[in-house]
Every structure is written in structure tokens, then in C-alpha cells.
């Protein structure tokens, strides 16, 4: 048995699960900062991004080292390559929450219609649900949950479209400028969830060894349909 190798794999897996949790927390903070106009919180999100970037890079380096020295195959190899790709997605997701935090800086001190605040909060809540499910699916290697991510993602896309309809109702120039930042934030949230769905595909692959693709009703194996 290759005890140290298995310990390294378990540690890497746990680290990536933990980065998902960190990205989830930073996403929550960025949305809260946007809604409450909390600049300090937004700055904390922006500053914290370096830490997430460094952790993702650390995962990549440890994966490379393990591949170079341990010759992993089969499920071990699938785990390692999947973790690298997942870390890449996580880095992008953290960047997107930084973008939301920057929107906080642009909009702070100004007020817009309550409907849009409600919309972004509702969308945020749905994204948190996707992120929590992503973390759990990766942690427990839960294939069914990973396959459910596209379904959880769907209403987020609908809310993003809803934003445009609300935007069209606005008339004041200042209000429109403010709302544009909100629409962008909504777009970033939608992209965060899309990355999570991609992570779900990686999780399914590391479990089954089969490439699955996203459909509106969930992930399906390549053979189906």
C-alpha cells in the first residue's frame, strides 16, 4: 500500500473542498456588501482574492508534483486532474465575486428600486444553494448531487433575464447607471453558478470515469440521448 500517496490525495481533496467553502463565503460577502453598501466588506473580498489564488496555485503545484513522482493511474489520476480543473474554476469564481465587490464600490451611497435589491438577494440565495451543493458533492463524491447541479442552476439564469426586464422600466439616468452595475453583478452571479455546474461535470468524471454533459434537467452520460 502507498500510504503517503493516499494521504497526499486525501489532503488535496480536502483542500479543494475547503477552497469551495472559501469561494462560497466570499460570494456571500460580495453580495451582502452590494446590498448593504458595505465598502469595508467589499474591500475584504477584494483583498481576500489573493489568498484564494495562492491556494488554487498551490493545488496545481501539488498535483504536478504528485503526477511527476507517483505515476497515478485510474481513479487516482482522474481525481488529480479533476482537482486541477476544479481549482481553475474556483479561481475564476473568486474573481467574479471580486467583480461584484467592485460594483459595491461604484454603487455605494446610492439607492435604487427595492425590486432590484430583492432580485439580487434572491439570485444570491440560489447561487449559495448551488455552491453548497457543489461543496457537498465534491466532499462526499456524491454523483447524484453532482448531476443535480444544472437543475439547481436553471432558475439563476431566469432571474438574470428578469433583471433586463426590470432595467427596461427605469427612466432616470442616475437610476439606470446604478441599475447597470446591478445587472453586471447579476451576470457575475450567473457566471459563478455556471462554473459550479462545470465543477459538477468534473466531479461526475472523477467518480465514474465517463464524460457527462449538462442539460437543463441535469448531467447525462455521453451515451444517453
Amino acid at each position, binding site marked *: 500500500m502507498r500510504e503517503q500517496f493516499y494521504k497526499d490525495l486525501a489532503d488535496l481533496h480536502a483542500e479543494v473542498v475547503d477552497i469551495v467553502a472559501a469561494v462560497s463565503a466570499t460570494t456571500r460577502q460580495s453580495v451582502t456588501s452590494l446590498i448593504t453598501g458595505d465598502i469595508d466588506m467589499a474591500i475584504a473580498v477584494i483583498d481576500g482574492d489573493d489568498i484564494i489564488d495562492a491556494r488554487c496555485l498551490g493545488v496545481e503545484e501539488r498535483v504536478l508534483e504528485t503526477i511527476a513522482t507517483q505515476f497515478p*493511474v485510474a481513479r487516482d*489520476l482522474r481525481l488529480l486532474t479533476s482537482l486541477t480543473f476544479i481549482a481553475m474554476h474556483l479561481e475564476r469564481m473568486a474573481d467574479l465575486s471580486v467583480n461584484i465587490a467592485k460594483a459595491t464600490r461604484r454603487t455605494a451611497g446610492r439607492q435604487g428600486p427595492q425590486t432590484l435589491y430583492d432580485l439580487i438577494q434572491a439570485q444570491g440565495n440560489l447561487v449559495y444553494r448551488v455552491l453548497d451543493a457543489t461543496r457537498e458533492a465534491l466532499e462526499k463524491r456524491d454523483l447524484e448531487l453532482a448531476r443535480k447541479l444544472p437543475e439547481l442552476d436553471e432558475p439563476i439564469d431566469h432571474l438574470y433575464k428578469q433583471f433586463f426586464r426590470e432595467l427596461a422600466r427605469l427612466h432616470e439616468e442616475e437610476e439606470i447607471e446604478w441599475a447597470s452595475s446591478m445587472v453586471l453583478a447579476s451576470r457575475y452571479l450567473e457566471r459563478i453558478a455556471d462554473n459550479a455546474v462545470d465543477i459538477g461535470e468534473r466531479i461526475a468524471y472523477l467518480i465514474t470515469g465517463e464524460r457527462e454533459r449538462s442539460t437543463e434537467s441535469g448531467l447525462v452520460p455521453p451515451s444517453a440521448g
Partner: protein
Amino acid sequence: MTLDKAAFAHKHHTHIEPLEVKITVRGLNFWYSDFNALTGITVDIKKKAVTAFIGPSGCGKSTFLRCMNRMNDLIPGTRVEGKMHLDGADIYGPGVDPVDLRRRVGMIFQQPNPFPQSIYDNVAYGPRLQGIKKKSDLDQIVEESLRRANVWKEVKDILGRGGLTLSGGQQQRLCIARVLAVQPEVLLMDEPCSAIDPTSVQKIEDLMAELKDTVTIVIVTHNMQQAARVSDFTAFFLQEVAGDPAVLVEYGRTSEIFTSPTDKRTEDYITGRFG
């Protein structure tokens, strides 16, 4: 598929169209006296490809390899049941001359075994037996065989020296040249790299990649990375309970076996979880 595409696909392990079969095996059982060593082996060995046999010690992979050129016939009390065909003709059929079979299906062993003769005579041995006498013909065969065996540059100026004076790795390549000199269709390699230096291992792996354009290669190896590197197809053998016959657990494209094996026993073995 155009020819170029087919060649590309073959080289990069992406071919989708089935390759021709060189050796067909159906329901093969093998006995050493009353010990049933292998049971129910069914496999198609693909033509002009490298197939690797892997599995823990004692799993019957070398035994199975030696069935393919009837090398086990030399061990008293052995018995084969089932079907094993070379290009559609029964390897164990009546009228098959084992010596002629072993020319068509050559073998390389773990320990290099050159004859105590010159390098030149080692390689010329087979062709001479076949009746080739003309010096220029023999010269040509010797050079070409040594080139294909990736050892020509090292020995071209010392062809008269004894084969046993070479290093182990060079001896092994000399033995490969000796087999190639009689134009085999299949090359069986039984742990050919276990006893030699890394440079020679690299040269043998390189020559395998070149030879498979013309020769069907089957290699038994305990080095899983080597199996992954050199082979197009991999077969995993396992004796699950000591004393029981070994079985062929899984057979498939090497790229799939080493990324997504379908049998848990294969996965556990290649990832080092047992064996």
C-alpha cells in the same frame, strides 16, 4: 478514413475502427499436470499493435504468453484446452510444426540468452538454418536486424566479437535482432526489461514502437508504467484465490484501462491498492 488519418489515429491511440486480429483465443484452459493454471481465457490479440499482459506474480500471464508459441510443450505434463488461432489457423492443430511456429512467433526472455558465438553469427544463425548462405545476403540481414533492434551503432565495428562480451542490455537487443532475422510475425516478450540498464530499456521501448508497424507484439511486464507507455492494449490477469486458476479480468485499450478501468479489481491493482 484516409491512410494518413488512420496512421495518425494508430500512433496516437485514437483509432476507432477495429484492428485486425492476429491471435484469437477462446475459452482457453491450461494445466501443469493436475494444477489448472488458467481458465476461460478469451481474447483477441490485435495485429500490428502492442499488447501488454499485467498482473501480480503467479497470475499466469507468462504461462499464457508461452501458450502462443507452444513453448509450454517443452514442460512435461502440461495440457491446453480451448481454441488458440494464429491468422485463423489452429496453433495446436495436427500437422503444426512447433519449430516453424516459433519462427513465426518469436520470443524474448527476461534473461538475455545469446549463443556463445560472435555477434554476427548470433544474428545469422536463423537465416543460415533457413538455407541462406550467400555472404552479401547474410550481411544485409544481420545489419538490418541489428538496426531494427536498436543496437547496430554500438556493435557495427565489433561484429566478430563474442555476443556474451556485450552488456546485459546490449545482449538483450542482440537477442531481439536474432529473432527479427527470421522475420517473425509475432514477437512475444517475457519481462524483457527486468534485468537490464535504463538506457537499454529506453532503446527497447523505442524499437517496440517502430516494430509494431510490421510485427504484432505481446509483452509481459511487471512495470505498470512500462505497460502504459508501450502498449496499445492491456490485459489484466489475476489469480483471486491461491490454488485456483487465474482468469483474464479485463482487456481493453491501454488508454482506457489506465484512466477508467471498468473492473474494480483492475482499478485496485493498477492503483497499487493490492498486489
